[in-house]
């Protein structure tokens, strides 16, 4: 049963992820494209659940569907032609080549061990909890510097965004 459920889940989430991605690139409507993108990202959240990382799944839904989707729709409404992307923006062959190249890079990056062989104990058997994550974020030999660096990055992102988006006069 357990293997079964996981397999079914994997197929469902794969259909969601790939189908959503297909929807994004085929629709001519920017808002529908956003919704398709969310379907795709929801599928990715499902993968995280299957990988026993429910925290990341919740983060995926919270950040991507809760915030990025909203941000994209706000951004979409700043553009002119929402329902029909102008014909002159469609470049089938260059985008096909670019995405194929990216796909190959990812494929080789994952399957070919460039930096030596992966030791077989790479995949941990212990399922880490959110508490372990929190402890690792701040304790001595953990990830304090990246934790604070993330904060600096977020601050910079926000200040930069406001700097660009604001009108000069105000």
């Amino acid at each position, binding site marked *: 049963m357990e293997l079964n459920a996981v397999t079914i889940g994997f197929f469902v989430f794969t259909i969601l992820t790939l189908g959503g991605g297909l929807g994004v690139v085929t629709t001519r409507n920017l808002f529908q494209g956003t919704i398709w993108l969310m379907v795709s990202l929801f599928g990715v959240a499902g993968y995280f659940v299957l990988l026993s990382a429910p925290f990341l799944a919740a983060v995926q839904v*919270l950040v991507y569907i809760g915030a990025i989707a909203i941000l994209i729709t706000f951004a979409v409404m700043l553009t002119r032609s929402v329902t029909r992307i102008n014909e002159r923006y469609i470049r089938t062959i260059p985008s096909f080549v670019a995405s194929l190249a990216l796909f190959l890079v990812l494929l080789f990056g994952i399957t070919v061990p460039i930096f030596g062989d992966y030791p077989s104990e790479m995949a941990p058997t212990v399922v880490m909890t959110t508490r372990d994550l929190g402890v690792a974020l*701040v304790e001595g030999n953990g990830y304090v510097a990246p934790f604070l660096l993330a904060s600096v990055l977020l601050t910079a992102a926000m200040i930069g965004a406001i700097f660009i988006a604001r009108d000069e006069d105000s």
Partner: protein
Amino acid sequence: MNVLNEWAFVGLFALMAPVFPALPIVIAWLFRPRKPNVLKSSTYECGVETIGDTWVQFRIQYYIYGLIFLVFDVEMVFLFPWAVAYNEMSLFGFVAGFLFIFLLTDALFYAWKKNALDWK
């Protein structure tokens, strides 16, 4: 109940959840009258005939709120594990968390001073 079984429950629930509101809608679909005409199924808006396109350009303020929200949302992602593990940390844990929040409060303060938080 192991973890995946729990999520199987959530998954099944997620499949069922849209069914509950869909059920009365489908039942209504069976019973309701159907007498469409051109005028009835035109956009209602405020009762007067619609003028122009709906997809007008919106003000940028929405986008700025969205951006600030996104930044805070990502911050939450870091703060949740921090809060969960908080009881096990030493004083250093508080200092790290405080610095993290303080830096972002700076950004909020900047937005405030630049009037980016005002609805215009």
